[in-house]
């Protein structure tokens, strides 16, 4: 084949490109999106969560605590030495982690230890958090590691490294899928996911179209909340999930995703989000579509501005579980362990409750009391 002019050739190559682009857009729709994702799943994810049962296969081991001293009352607890506690969270942008750090700081001040705070500079970045933990291990910079892992499966090897180096892990918020930890403090995210749907089915009278926005794939909290929601939804066949996407915990991304989804799903009654940042992004999208308050948006975390939005009637509800308490408890457990105490409970779960217009004032007062809201 001979080409006569260059313009024609450029035109042809562009045409080929068009066809490719069209194929790319059109092709995945030939199979339902969900099944397409399922097919790719075994290739990218190592141990898949047991579907249906709704629980992630946690192979985490709890350390055999050799402490001999009986635990002292919290009021009289003091560190025997000025231990150094490394406090590792997932990012420096979400107010949730700020509350957790405040809890850790308050516990440290009370029990007489020092806390050093760490977080990846890029939010929820697994390699960066891994490097930070490795540094702590190599430099023997801490007596205990209080840690919320970004990826509960990918960072099991890192937990094992810490185990080998005899750095005790006090896992919080996001439970690891393996390795050995001393304690876990968090909430039951699976039960929470179920609880959110149970709450919404009452609000929606067991029928209606809803959108679900998930957190970062690979985060325990995202995974378990999603599974809990889907499990509970089985009971209510008239509640239809018309769209189910991730917005990666991010407000800006949720804004965009919601704007787009509202176009194809104008008759949606509720948007259920796995955290407040995404919920507030959805609220912003509804705001610019003139639908604020008409679509019921729910989030998780009860961050300060989420509570304000609940009070204003823009956000319908937010699940409250205390980041402050799990941060506080993790440092307390570290002190007890390092003191050689027997720890009364190796799994510490805080309750969650749903904050809506009826109890938002109470939640705000509570936040102000512990100093994480002005």
């Amino acid at each position: 084949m001979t080409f006569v002019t260059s313009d024609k050739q450029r035109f042809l190559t562009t045409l080929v490109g068009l066809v490719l682009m069209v194929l790319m857009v059109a092709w995945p729709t030939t199979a339902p999106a969900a099944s397409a994702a399922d097919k790719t799943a075994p290739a990218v994810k190592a141990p898949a969560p047991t579907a249906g049962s709704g629980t992630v296969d946690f192979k985490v081991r709890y350390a055999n605590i050799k402490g001999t001293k009986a635990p002292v009352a919290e009021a009289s607890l003091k560190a025997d030495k000025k231990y150094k506690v490394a406090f590792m969270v997932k990012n420096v942008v979400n107010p949730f982690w700020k509350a957790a750090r405040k809890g850790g700081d308050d516990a440290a001040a009370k029990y007489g230890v020092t806390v050093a705070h760490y977080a990846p500079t890029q939010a929820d970045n697994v390699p960066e958090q891994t490097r930070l933990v490795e540094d702590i291990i190599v430099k023997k910079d801490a007596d205990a590691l209080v840690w919320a892992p970004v990826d509960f499966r990918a960072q099991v090897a890192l937990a094992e490294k810490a185990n080998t180096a005899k750095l005790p892990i006090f896992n919080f918020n996001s439970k690891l899928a393996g390795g050995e930890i001393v304690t876990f403090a968090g909430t039951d995210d699976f039960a929470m996911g179920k609880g959110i749907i149970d709450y919404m089915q009452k609000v929606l009278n067991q029928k209606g179209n809803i959108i679900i926005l998930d957190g970062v794939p690979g985060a325990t909290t995202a995974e378990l909340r999603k599974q809990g929601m889907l499990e509970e939804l089985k009971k209510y066949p008239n509640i239809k999930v018309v769209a189910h996407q991730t917005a990666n915990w991010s407000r800006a991304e949720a804004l965009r995703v919601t704007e787009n989804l509202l176009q194809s799903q104008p008759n949606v009654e509720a948007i259920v989000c796995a955290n407040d940042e995404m919920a507030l992004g959805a609220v912003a999208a509804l705001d610019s579509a003139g639908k604020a308050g008409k679509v019921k948006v729910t989030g998780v975390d009860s961050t300060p501005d989420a509570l304000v939005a609940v009070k204003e009637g823009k956000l319908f509800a937010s699940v409250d579980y205390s980041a402050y308490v799990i941060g506080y408890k993790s440092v307390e457990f570290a002190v007890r362990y390092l003191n050689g105490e027997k720890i009364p409970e190796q799994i510490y779960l805080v309750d969650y409750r749903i904050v809506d217009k009826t109890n938002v004032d109470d939640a705000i007062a509570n936040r102000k009391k512990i100093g994480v809201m002005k």
Partner: protein
Amino acid sequence: MIDIRQLLFSLSRVLALLVLCAAVAVVAPAFLSSQNLVNVLRQASLMIILATGLTAVILTGGIDLSVASLLALAACFSGMLMTEGIPWYLAALAALGLTTFCGLINGLMIAVVRLPAFIVTYGMLWIAQGFAVLVASSEVFYGFPPPFLFLGRGYLFGIPMPIVFMTLVAAAAWTLLHRTPLGREIYAMGANPDAARLSGIDVKTNLIKVYTASGFLAGLAGLILTARMNAASAEVSADQLLPAVAAVVIGGTSLFGGEGGIRGTVVGSLIMTVLINGMNLLNISPFWQLTAQGTVVIVAVLLDQGARALERRGEKRRPKVGSRPEASVGLPVEPTSAVSN
């Protein structure tokens, strides 16, 4: 006389966009609703504003990796000032001033100190992100005054404000690049830096101007996004930089400088946005969304390079007088094929 083939070719990216739109509309009829089209334009606005600054930078043969972080810095800084009770217009001006200043620093380091643009702006990426995090200190600022929110949520004669800003920015940039000596000098600098310098172009000043403008536009985008969300946090920088660079490249601007233009960038941004919008409308899994975006970028550049290679071969066979910059040693040339798309 208008050459039909020339015309068709100059419109090929627009055609690509139209075919993409048609494809999405077939599988997701909601796409064509006027509401959704406005929605697409509004979402493309931020990317176009960021990408406009980047286009000018890339035309000189440089790169500005700091735009997304500057966007976050403007968001957090203006958010903090407003939360402290500073009037919204002063807060907005201060934030714009700050990012413009950061852009100026970029330009000075590159033009005067002569450090590589990649390194300088990469450093600025972290500096600005660091400041944004410091300013926000894990807070989310929220609850801004209505006149400020108007910048992101308001309508002017029925047109959403982000689209108004985007149109103004793109039109100004187009005029600047194609109707002023500065614009021609920018192209010449990218096409052949040495020739440009030898022919008396003030390369230093121009570089400083371009990076400063990029900083200003990043700040503007940050303010608009803050107003749209009615919230500011350091997190907003995520996923802004690379799509903007991709939009410029898909639009046909060469990463080596000297070729391309604003029209291509606008179309490139729209292609990226329509793609994402379509995939959201179709409820496609996030794994596929990322894969599709990445593939589009590579395919677009591949096609562009292939087309350029073919064009060069074609020209050897059938030289057109005055069609290449070499014909007049780079200056002042309206780059033909490059600008036309």
